[in-house]
C-alpha cells in the first residue's frame, strides 16, 4: 500500500520537474535573445557612441555623421505628444469613470477605446496625413508628428488612467461626498492625486512606445536627412519663448536609424546601431522612471 503511494508521488514529482525544466528553457530563451540583442547593439553601437556622434549633423561621410537633429526632433515631438495626449486622455478617463452614466453607450465606447489601442500605427499615420496635413494644413511639421503620436498614445493613456482611478476605493470617494464635496472637488482633491502614480506610469509607458514609432511619421512626411535644427523655442528678445519650431520640418531618432540601415555601406549600419543604442537607453530610462514612480506611490499611499 505505502509502496503504491510512493510510486504515485514519485511519478507526480517527475512530471513536476519536467514542467519546471521546460519553463526554465522557455525563460532562458527569452532572456538570451534579449541579451543577444543588447550585446550586438552595445558592441556595434558602442563603437560609434561618442560626444561627436550625439552632437553632429548627418553627413555623407559615415564617420562624421551624428544624431543631433534626431535627438532634438524626438524631444520636441514627444513634448507635443505629452502636452496633448495627457490632458485629453486623463480628462476622457475621468469623465468615463466618474461622470458618465453606466449604460450600453459608455460600454460601447469603452470597448472601442480598447480596440483603438490595438489599431496598427500606420493606420494612425494615414489618418493623420488626411486630417493634420491635408485638412488642417499643419504641414510636415513637428506639430503634425506630435499630434499623430498623441493619437496613438491616447487610448493607452485613457485605459491606464481608468485603471489607476479605479484603484481609489469607493470608501474614500464616499468620505469626500459625505462632507458635501461635488464630483469635481472629489476628483481634484482625491481621485487624481491618489492615482497620479498609476497615471504617470501609464503615460510614460505610452510615450516610451511612441518614441520608437517610425511608420506613422514616414506617412506624415518626416525627413530622413536633415542638416539643420528647428527654430529655438527660447529667443533672445522678449517674450523669450517662440512657438515657431512647431511648424518646422524635423526628423526623429528612429527615422534616422531607418535611413542609415537602408544604405549599402557597412559604416552607416554601425551608425544605425549607435542611434539604436541611444533610443533604447532612453526607453529603458523611461521604463525605469515608471517603475520608480509606481514603487514610490505604493509606499506613500496606503488605504
Amino acid at each position, binding site marked *: 500500500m505505502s509502496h503504491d503511494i510512493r510510486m504515485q508521488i514519485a511519478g507526480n514529482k517527475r512530471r513536476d520537474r519536467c514542467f519546471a525544466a521546460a519553463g526554465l528553457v522557455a525563460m532562458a530563451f527569452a532572456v538570451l535573445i534579449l541579451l543577444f540583442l543588447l550585446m550586438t547593439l552595445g558592441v556595434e553601437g558602442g563603437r560609434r557612441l561618442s560626444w561627436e556622434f550625439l552632437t553632429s549633423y548627418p553627413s555623407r561621410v559615415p564617420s562624421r555623421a551624428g544624431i543631433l537633429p534626431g535627438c532634438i526632433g524626438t524631444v520636441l515631438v514627444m513634448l507635443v505628444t505629452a502636452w496633448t495626449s495627457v490632458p485629453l486622455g486623463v480628462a476622457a478617463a475621468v469623465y468615463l469613470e466618474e461622470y458618465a452614466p453606466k449604460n450600453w453607450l459608455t460600454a460601447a465606447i469603452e470597448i472601442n477605446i480598447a480596440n483603438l489601442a490595438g489599431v496598427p500605427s500606420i493606420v494612425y499615420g494615414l489618418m493623420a496625413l488626411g486630417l493634420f496635413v491635408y485638412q488642417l494644413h499643419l504641414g510636415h511639421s513637428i506639430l503634425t508628428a506630435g499630434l499623430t503620436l498623441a493619437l496613438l498614445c491616447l487610448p493607452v493613456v485613457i485605459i491606464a488612467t481608468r485603471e489607476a482611478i479605479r484603484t481609489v476605493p469607493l470608501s474614500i470617494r464616499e468620505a469626500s461626498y*459625505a462632507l458635501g464635496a461635488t464630483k469635481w472637488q472629489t476628483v481634484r482633491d482625491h481621485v487624481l492625486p491618489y492615482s497620479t502614480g498609476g497615471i504617470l506610469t501609464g503615460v510614460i509607458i505610452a510615450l516610451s512606445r511612441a518614441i520608437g514609432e517610425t511608420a506613422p511619421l514616414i506617412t506624415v512626411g518626416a525627413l530622413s536627412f536633415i542638416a539643420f535644427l528647428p527654430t529655438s523655442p527660447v529667443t533672445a528678445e522678449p517674450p523669450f519663448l517662440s512657438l515657431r519650431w512647431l511648424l518646422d520640418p524635423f526628423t526623429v531618432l528612429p527615422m534616422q536609424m531607418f535611413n542609415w540601415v537602408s544604405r549599402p555601406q557597412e559604416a552607416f549600419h554601425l551608425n544605425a546601431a549607435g542611434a539604436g543604442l541611444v533610443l533604447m537607453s532612453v526607453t529603458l530610462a523611461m521604463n525605469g522612471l515608471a517603475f520608480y514612480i509606481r514603487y514610490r506611490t505604493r509606499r506613500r499611499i496606503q488605504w
Partner: protein
Amino acid sequence: MTTASVPPAKAEIRNLSFSFGRTEVLKSVSMPIADRRVTALIGPSGCGKTTFLRCLNRMQDLHPDVRYTGEIILHPEQINIIDPAIDPIEVRMRVGMVFQKPNPFPKSIFENVVYGLRIRGIRDRATLDERAVQALQEAALWEEVKDRLREPATSLSGGQQQRLCIARALATKPEMILFDEPTSALDPVATAKIEELMTSLKNEVTIVIVTHNMQQAARVSDYTAFMFLGTLVEFDRTDTIFTNPSSSLTEEYVTGRFG
C-alpha cells in the same frame, strides 16, 4: 407599529419608502429623530437600517436609479430634504457621516480634519487651525495627535483613524451626524472610546447610529428603532425597547432569539 413621541425633534420621517430600481428597500417608515439625542437603528442584516441611514444625508443619490417617496422633514426650517428640488450636497453639508470602516484620506491628519472646511471655501489659516484643534478635542483625539498633525492619517491606529473621521465630520459643525456601524471594525477598547465620545457629543449634535450590537444600542442611545424587512417594527425609548417592547418580534430580536 407604535411610535413614541419625542421631545423636540431634529427630523421627522413620514411614510418614507425607498427603492433601488424596482426593488423597494424601505416601506413606509415613519419616525421622529430627537434633537441632540442618540437614536439607534437595530435589526437583522438586510432589514434596511443602513439604507435608511443613507437616506438621511442623501448618500443614496450617488447610486443611479433610486427613488424616494414620503418626506424627511429637517427642523428647524421644516424643509423636506428628499424633495428633488433640494440639492443633495446642501443636505450633506448639514448632515455629517461616519462610516463602518475608518476611511481617512491618505493625507496628513490636519488636512483630513479641515477638508470639509476647505470645500466650503475657508482658506484663512487661523480659522482652519482653530477649527481643527476644536474638532480634534471634541473627538477626544487632540492629546494623541497634537505633536504630529503633519503626519499621514494612515499612520494612526484603527480606533484613532475612526476618531479622526469623527473629528473630520465635526469640524464643519453639522446639525446631525450619522454613524454607520462605526465600531464594527474596532477592538473593545477603541469601541468603548467611541461610545464614550458619542455620549459626550450628544449635547451638541443629533446622532443617529446603525448598530448590529444590541448592547451598544442599549448603552449609547436614548431612542431605538427596530427594523425588519424594510419596515419599522417599533420605535420607542431605548429602555422600553429593551425591557418592555410592545411587539413580540422586537422582543425576540432583542433577547437574541433571531437575527
